[in-house]
C-alpha cells in the first residue's frame, strides 16, 4: 500500500467518512469537521501508524495534504 493510500485510510477513519478522497491540494476548508481538535487526532494517528514524529516547525508549515505527504515520505526515507 502506498503512503497516499494509507493516509487516505487514516483520513476516512479520523473523519468517520468513507467517501473522502485525498489529493495534494486538499485543505481543512474542504473536509467537513477538520478543525483544530480533529487535526491533532489526525497528526497523532499518522505518527502512530507510520512510526514517525513530526517537529513543531514541520507541523506549523503544513498547509495542505500535499505538504503532509511530502513530510511523511521524507521522514520514512530518513528512518
Amino acid at each position, binding site marked *: 500500500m502506498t503512503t497516499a493510500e494509507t493516509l487516505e485510510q487514516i483520513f476516512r477513519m479520523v473523519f468517520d467518512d468513507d467517501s473522502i478522497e485525498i489529493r495534494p491540494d486538499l485543505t481543512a476548508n474542504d473536509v467537513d469537521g477538520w478543525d*483544530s481538535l480533529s487535526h*491533532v487526532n489526525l497528526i497523532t494517528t499518522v505518527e502512530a501508524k507510520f512510526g514517525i514524529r513530526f517537529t513543531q516547525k514541520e507541523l*506549523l508549515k503544513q498547509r495542505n495534504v500535499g505538504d503532509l505527504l511530502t513530510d511523511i515520505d521524507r521522514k520514512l526515507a530518513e528512518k
Partner: protein
Amino acid sequence: MTFNTLSYFFFLPASYLAFYLTADRWRWLVLLLASYGFYACLKAPYLLAVLFAVTTISYCVGLKIAQVEPESLKRRWLFGGCLACIGTLAAVKCLPLLATRGGTSGTLISVGVSYFSFQAVSYLADIYLEIEEPERDFGRFALYLAFFPKLLQGPIERGGDLLPQLKKPYRFDYDTARSGLVLFGGGLFKKVVVADWLGLYADQVYNNVHDYTGVSLLVATYAYALQIYFDFSSYTDMARGTARLFGIELTENFNAPYRATSVAEFWRRWHISFSRWILDYIFKPLQLSWRHAGQLGSALALVVTFLISGLWHGVGWTFVIWGLLHGSYLAASNYYRPYQKRLYQWLGVARSPWLSWWKIFVTFHLVSFAWVFFRANTLSDALYVARNLFDLGGSLSAYLTLGSKPFYRDLVLMGVGENKTYLQLLCIALVLALKKAGQETRSQPALRWVYYLATALACLNFGIPNINKFIYMQF
C-alpha cells in the same frame, strides 16, 4: 490625534494631497513620514524611539533568520527577535505600573506598541516557517510596521498581505476613493453617534456599580457589549477607509460577531486579525506540543492561550478572569459538543430554524457575562455585578416605578424623553436601513445621497463631544 478629532480632518487631506502629488517611487516615503508624524502627535517621543527600535530589530533579525544555518541557529534568532519585541512591549506596558507603585504618577502611554510588536513577531515567525521571504527594503519594511491607519489599534497585518501592497504603484480610482470615504464616514457615525452614546450609560453604571442592582446592571452590560463592538469596529472601518484612499486594503477585523452561534465562532468573527494571531502563534504551537495528551492537551492550550490574551489586555484579576472564562468556554465545548449534537437530535430540534436563534442568544449572553469582568474597574465591582446581575425580580418593580431614583437617572443618562434622542434613534435607523445602498457604487444616486447626508448630519448633531479615545487604544 485620533480619527474622530478635528486635527485628523486636516491631517488626512494634507497627507493624501502630498501622497497624490509625489512621484510613485517616493510615495512610500510620504506615507512613512506621515505615519511617524501621526505617531508624534501623541506627544510621547519615546514611542517613536520604541517604534524605530522594534522596526530595526525585526528587520535585522528577519534577514538573519533567512540567512543562517543550521535550524537550531534559526530558532535561536527567532526566539531572540521575538523576546526583544515582546520584552519591549512588556517594558512599555509595565513601566507606568511600576512608576505608580513607586509613588510617582504613571504618565507613560503605550498606544500602538502592542499592535506593531505583534506584527513584528508574526513577520519573524512567518520567515522562520518559510511562509514569507524577508523584506530587504528597510523603508518599506518600516512603513509596514508604522502605516498610520492601523498603527494605534490594528488590524494586525501579516507581511504577506500588506508588504506587496506597499510596493504597488498607485493609480487614482474614483470608486475606490469614494468607497474609502463612505467606509470612513460610516465608522465615524458608529463611533460618535452609537458607541459614545451607549458609553454614557455603561460608564455611569460601571463606574458606580454599588448604586445599581438587577435590571440596571443588566442593561448596562448589554450597553457595554454593544458599545465595545461599535467602538472597536468603528475604528477598523475608519482605518480601512483611510487606507483604501491610498490604494491599500486592510484586513476586515469584524464580521457580525454577535450573530455567532458558538463562542468558537465568535472568535472567528471578533477582532479577527488578533484572533488569527493568537491562534497561529500561541494556540497552535501549544496544542501541537501537547498533542499526545489528546483532548486534555487541546483544552489546556485553549485555557493558556486565553489567559495570555487576558494578561495582554491588562495585568489584573478582572482581565485574567475574562481570559479564563473564554478559555473555559472553548475548552468545555470540546468535551460537550458531541453530546450537544445528540441532545438536539433527541429533542428533534436539530433542523429547527429556532435552534440557530437559541444558539446566538446563548453565545451573546456567555460573551456578555465575560464582558462584565473586562469592563469592571475592580474585581470587587465585577463580583458585585455578577452577584446582582440576576436579581431581576426584586429590582424590576423598583425600576419600573415612576419616581424611583434609578429609573429617572437611567433615562436621563440615555437622553430619553428629549426630542433630540428620538430624532437620533430615527437617524440611526435611517442610516442602518440605507447602509447597503449607500455603500454600493451602482445603487440609486438619490438613496446614496440620503445616506451621506443622514450620516453627516447625525455625526454633527448627535455626536457626543469631548470623547476622543477608543476603548482598545489602552491595550
